[in-house]
């Protein structure tokens, strides 16, 4: 187990290094941040001074070495735009994105698994067909369009929910959370639903496919023959066995929801990391983009590790050996 985890961490370190080189070179190639940042009224002297202040007068390899130097000491550099440490800027936005992503995943799981089970157990019923058709819509409608429609329906026309922003927050463990206040919760509903829609469809389809396969297995037939209550058959024998693919996909999707909920965050003016990433790319704020991607890589690594650990809980036959990773 320990070997397994260590090997994982070593692999991740390689990914982190490769990615920071790629990102650094990529953003370097796009253009010079000073062209975007500086006031057009500034003269040549001021321009040169600003370039020197931000360290942009050095050649690229030197800038990269300075970055590596700082990064090894835990300092990912100072944002060109905001003048504060880049990592702090990213982490400050993290809770907002995390709670949005977790709420979206919660919606996807809580609704998706029962609906998928139902559609799998009764594939030819009216309800089963409606569920499957609905999931196709959830897959195919673009997120930004659905988001705007949700705003138009529930905020503009009906006036039930706010159109965007994070609302009131309350502090827990020194971090601000929206879920803890009624106002914050109301602000969370629309973006969470919007973000959940795609995942919901995915979970429904996975759960349905799994259910249809498992329901025909011998042990389910045997359980039924033994006279077990249907609730126990579905709840224990079927549910547990369809969870492995669902957990795998959810793990991967959770990472991508946290890292790339850019569209939803823009549509709902949600002050999360995704919006920060887009703004930073547009302004060529290199330290922030790199800090963001490093955080993202770490996130994926941790989530995948957790997924692997959950496997062995769900299916005792799976062993996390050191021999293969």
């Amino acid at each position, binding site marked *: 187990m320990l070997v397994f985890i260590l090997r994982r961490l070593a692999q991740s370190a390689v990914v982190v290094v490769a990615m920071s080189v790629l990102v650094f070179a990529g953003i370097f190639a796009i253009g010079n*941040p000073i062209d975007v940042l500086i006031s057009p009224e500034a003269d040549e002297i001021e321009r040169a001074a600003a370039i020197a202040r931000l360290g942009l007068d050095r050649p690229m390899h030197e800038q990269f070495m300075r970055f590596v130097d700082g990064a090894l000491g835990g300092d990912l550099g100072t944002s060109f735009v905001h003048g504060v440490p880049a990592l702090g800027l990213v982490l400050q936005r993290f809770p907002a994105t995390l709670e949005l992503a977790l709420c979206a995943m919660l919606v996807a799981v809580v609704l998706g698994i029962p609906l998928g089970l139902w559609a799998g157990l009764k594939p030819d019923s009216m309800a089963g067909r409606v569920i499957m058709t609905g999931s196709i819509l959830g897959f195919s409608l673009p997120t930004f369009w659905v988001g705007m429609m949700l705003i138009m329906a529930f905020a503009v026309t009906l006036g039930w929910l706010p*159109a965007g922003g994070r609302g009131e927050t309350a502090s827990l463990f020194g971090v601000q959370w929206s879920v803890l206040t009624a106002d914050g919760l109301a602000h969370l509903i629309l973006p969470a639903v919007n973000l959940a829609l795609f995942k919901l469809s995915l979970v429904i389809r996975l759960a349905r496919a799994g259910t249809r396969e498992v329901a025909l297995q011998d042990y389910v037939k045997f359980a039924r023959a033994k006279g077990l209550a249907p609730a126990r058959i579905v709840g224990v024998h079927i549910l547990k066995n369809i969870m492995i693919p669902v957990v795998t996909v959810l793990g991967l999707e959770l990472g991508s929801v946290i890292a790339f909920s850019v569209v939803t965050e823009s549509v709902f003016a949600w002050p999360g990391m995704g919006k920060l990433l887009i703004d930073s790319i547009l302004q060529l704020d290199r330290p922030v983009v790199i800090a963001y991607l490093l955080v993202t890589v770490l996130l994926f690594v941790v989530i995948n590790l957790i997924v692997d650990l959950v496997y062995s809980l769900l299916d005792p036959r799976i062993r996390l050996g050191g021999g293969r990773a």
Partner: protein
Amino acid sequence: MALRDRRLADVLCSGTFKPLLPAVAALALLAAVPAPSQAATLTVGTSAEPSALDPHYHNLGPNTRARKHVFESLVSMDAKMRLQPELAESWRAVDETTWEFKLRKGVKFHDGSDFTAQDFVYTVCRIPNVANSPSSFTVYTKGIAAIETPDPHTILVKTGKPYPLLPMELSTFGIISAKAAGGTAVTFDKAGCKADSWPTTQAFNDGSLMIGTGPFKHKSYTKGDRQVLERNPGYWGPQPAWDTVVFRPITSDGPRVAALLAGDVDLIESPPVQDIERLKSAPNVALAQAQSNRVIYLALGVQDTPPTITGTDGKNPLKDPRVRKALSLAVDRDAIVKRIMLGVAEPANQYLPAGFYGNNPEVTVATDANKAKQLLAEAGYPKGFQLTLGTPNDRYINDDKVAQAVAQMFTRIGVQTQVDATTANVFFSKRNKQEYSVFLAGWGADSGEMSSPLKALIATPIKEKGYGTTNYTSYSDPELDGMLDTALATVDDAKREKLLQAAVKRAMDADIIIPLHYEVTVWAMKKGLSYEPRADQYTLAQKVTPAK
């Protein structure tokens, strides 16, 4: 917004909220009408967020907008960008190189301390000492050679040479409290002021140094989410109508409009052009719009080897004034304004609209495709040539669409034109390396006077004078530079205006910078509010009033 909480409480706490909805909706409608007796809150949806609250960190529109609520300057600008007194009651040029400012008495900072001349001295000293500043306000303080403070309410500013723009430049930065920053003993030194330490940008972002003299006090700030201000009861000027002001950055256009329609915010900046008709017909929305100080222009490069022109054997046809005139004549500005800007712009005939300082009423532009073809033929290009026009596609209103229209107009007179539209960060990097023979861009004159576009866009790049900082055309006209030199050293306002008018005439005759249109800035707000639209595009909560 307290009402929304109640509405939510209904929705969330009662299982039977559906029958209540009509009543709730009615309540929500009532909330839209500002009631003067209650604590009044104004929520503004802004199109961009300041990069920091530090008033001297970044010389950028959204930062100045945020600054103007909390920190004031000696001199200020009204909605038409004319100078008006703020912390200085009056000012005058004592001689060619000395300006005297008489400060307003009885002005207090938010912490209760008095505003004096030392706060100005300390501010000028601090501006060059902001760590990591991506664009500093030193452009506006570099003209100051010495500061004398004969008494706490008089400031004498000495400049190295005659400097007519000084009062304007002092309107660009906000004055911070020397006492709060521990700088009561700091004295001005042209070579660099001495202090043990300078305030950090972080100290402003976390609110500890947000101590100004402005109509609002800083309350809280969550980056990316909101900035909350509250009324300053001790303000020297007229009290704003709002007890609390909330600024929320909603950078995407559609969601910003939706937030207004949903009643989340009371006022929004720059609704997208295509939504304006719809907002006009909405029953509970009012609009305000004003011509801005920003001109959208085409710049024609006269490099020896044209970067994006082909079909001329390597020669640059734009070096011939007849070709440049032909391109100017090819542009139908009325059509661009009507069809592409949907009327939310004004055709431009020079670099600043009528009414701005230095506008020359005698300068005109014309559209004449036949004349243009004739000029091309005379210049030796009867069959035209091939041209690529560079433009950003996310910087100015409908920028790439305007460029497409211009390309068609050029093609009509025989100059086959392609458009290279890229995102702003790529475009500006390429443009600054002179990789376009012709590009589309915009210029907002922060000073509100003609010297700004002339100096930046068309004057010969001369580092020491700060000329030609945005001149990416390789154009140089020493006579025009000389006219600018004289104008910028003339303290007499009437004389200087005449000189600038002559200079703009000469610049326009060169057809290097071809103006297309002036952007119009629009604000949309709840019916019942009114806002005097500003040419400098700032959204100032103290100027938003409930209609009487």
